């Protein structure tokens, strides 16, 4: 009798332990997902700055503001607080300024533009508008590179990666460091 009682007690505690474990794990998974959204854009914000660091603009690009590197945001800002982190950082001796742009942006007022996913429908218009200007175009809109954008951000295996369209860059007169190229996928010519 005693033996059976003991076996029962053991199983009981095991069940309680497993239940507790499942409850804990379920909670954490949800947090992870929410965090990963913010984390993704925190990374992408860092990427934006990093791209600026590996890019070399022609001097004409800074005609308006000699001392600033203006990062323009087109569309609804997906970054949350992450962009604020970039504000005031120094790249190539220039202070980074975040600029939220209008629907009709001035291509000569900034050096780097992030086109948010919200602008996917008007992408062609924007691409045309910035064509020939020394402005680095970055977006996480799928097929951005193939459609004529410069750097397309994408996620693979839960990691943020990017694709570079060398042909598109050529007309903008911006030179990207080979180190950056080394890390990127290249958009193949059609």
């Amino acid at each position: 009798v005693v033996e059976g009682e003991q076996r029962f007690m053991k199983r009981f505690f095991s069940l309680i332990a497993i239940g507790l474990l499942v409850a804990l794990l379920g909670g954490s998974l949800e947090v992870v997902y929410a965090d990963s959204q913010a984390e993704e854009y925190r990374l992408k914000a860092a990427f934006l700055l990093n791209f600026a660091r590996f890019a070399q603009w022609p001097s004409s690009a800074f005609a308006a503001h000699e001392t600033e590197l203006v990062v323009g945001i087109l569309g609804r800002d997906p970054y949350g607080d992450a962009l604020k982190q970039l504000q005031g950082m120094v790249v190539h001796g220039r202070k980074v300024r975040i600029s939220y742009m209008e629907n009709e942006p001035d291509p000569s007022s900034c050096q780097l533009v992030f086109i948010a996913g919200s602008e996917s429908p008007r992408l062609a218009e924007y691409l045309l508008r910035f064509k020939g200007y020394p402005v680095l175009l970055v977006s996480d809109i799928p097929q951005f590179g193939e459609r004529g954008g410069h750097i397309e951000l994408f996620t693979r295996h839960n990691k943020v990666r990017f694709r570079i369209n060398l042909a598109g860059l050529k007309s903008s007169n911006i030179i990207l460091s080979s180190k950056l190229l080394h890390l990127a996928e290249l958009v193949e010519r059609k």
Partner: protein
Amino acid sequence: MVHRRFSGLTSISTKLRVIILTICGLVLLFSTVAATLYTIYSGRQDLRQKVLAMTEIAANQSAAALMFEDAVTAAENLKSLQAAPEVEVALLRLPDNRKLAAYRRAPEVKEVSCPQCANDGIHWLEKQLHSVQTIRVDGNIVGRLVLQVSLEDLHRQTTSFVALSLLMLLAAMAAASALATWMQRSITRPVEELSEGMQHVARTNDYSIRVPRKTEDELGRLTDGFNAMLGQIESQEKELARHREELEMLVEQRTRELKVSMDKVQQLAFFDELTGLANRLLFKERVDLVLGHARQQKDNFAILFLDLDRFKRINDSFGHHIGDMLLKEIARRLLACLRTTDMVSLWTEELLNQCVSRQGGDEFILLLSELKTTGDAARVANRIIKAISQPIQLEGYELVSTTSIGIAVYPDDGTTVDQLLKNADAAMYHAKKEGRNNYQFFRDTMHESSIRRLSVETELRHALEQKQLRVVYQPLIDLAENRVYGAEALVRWSHPRLGNISPVEFIPVAEECDLIGPLTGYMLDQVGRHLARWRDMRLPSIQVSVNVSGARFGQQRLVEMTRRVIRTYGLTPQQLILELTEYTLMTNRQETLEILLHLQREGVGIAIDDFGTGYSSLAYLKSFPIDTLKIDKSFVDEVATDPNDQAIVRAIIALARSLELEVIAEGVETEEQRGFLLNLGCYRFQGYLYGRPMPPKDFEEFLATAKPAL
């Protein structure tokens, strides 16, 4: 301590080798240690530079990957470190320390934890090093690279270098050892040669060798110095050897001289220097020997004691030179006599020499052994007397000497050497007393006479002082003028104890012991005194003759004495006649002649006593200032019966006549003798026939009474 131990090492070569090896070893050790340390240091420096460079490159490459958190690319980048096999691990960390990428050379390689490796730079661990670099882009930290590099290679490299260095060290030490051997040989070889040279010299004392000089350095100079020293020593040695030789020669010469001297000393000790005969010492030894022999064999032997007659006179008159030559000749003759004696025929010349001995002066002793009868001794004595009496020619002089011999025979005349010698001496004196030129065997009574002779000698001195001597006068008669023309003064000695002593006995004694001078002086004085007295008594003036001995004659004092007496007593010089014997006249002729000439100038008469007994050359006679010849008594004795004596007397008278000399016969005792002498032409006489010698008082009377009644 070290120094001592070092200096305790046996040889220079060992010391040199130790020095060279020690120096080489130290140098090599230091250089090896330095090279090793430098190698380790530079190896680490190289590695450090290399690792820093790799870190820089990898960091640079990885910056973009870090910025974009591209783990794949980062890993790929790190993979390029495969090219450097020493890199074990490479780690890329993001700024929040998350690990972006890692590289491991092999799966089993572990990352070593390094708490102190937070800072940038190289951190050396035991077997690894960590290179840490913070990666920045535009002043912002994008991540950190850590490289873990294995030090195995470096350690292996160092180890093999040390091993190689040790090998090289050993090889170098071996080479140094060989070099040291060669070097020490080049240095010590000359030293060893020097040392061997020195030892050789020390061993053999051969200073003629030289050590060959091989080097020009200090050792060469040392060798030169050594050789120079050897040269000097050699020359000194030679000099020394020369001196030694000279010295040895000198010593040898001295030894020879010494031997000669010793021989001479022996000769002097045992032999008479003048004649080469044995001296008294050796002779006595010889006699002792013969005595011992004779005692055993009941043999007889004889000792002959010789004394040359009147040798003293010869010596005084002719000088010692002639005397010595005479003695030598006598010795020669004695030896010759013995040599021809059959009983000594067995003797060697040396032994013969020892059997004739000179006793000093003119005495000789002979030993005649193995006598058969005493007649043998007499025969030898005769032969000796005859041989010695042969005239001797010496430097133009013809000398005649005679000898008196005393013979003592063993065992009758003595059983000891001294006794025999004493008795032979006594016998010799007896022979002298017997008129010389003869030999006498010892008789017991002779001792008395020789004792007497000794007492005569001592008493004679007193006699002169105490005036025991008296003068007696024997008249001299001239038959042609029939008068007493003079007298011969004769001496008489009445001793209070010994009684009357004959002049025959004491005159020779006086001669021998230098008393003849005072005696003559005394006589002259007495005669002068008596003549003065007789003159004062107005007695007839007469001449008085005084005997002058040869021994005294050689002295100028005779002339002075004569002069003084004549002056003192106021005599006419013609009253004095000095009588000297033929012997005196002929010995020491020149001096005698001068004295006689002096006396003649004074006016004193000169008479030759005992004329005919000597062997004087008549040819010389005329050169002397002589007035009278006195014919010896021995011729007068037999003149009546012996025709020989008559012939001699006739010859003497003829000689006197031809030389215009007076002649007087002595010892005339009988009428017969007087008759013969008158017939032969001699008119002057002296003798008992006319008067015995008488005291002055008696003679005064005789003179006063015995007038021309003859």
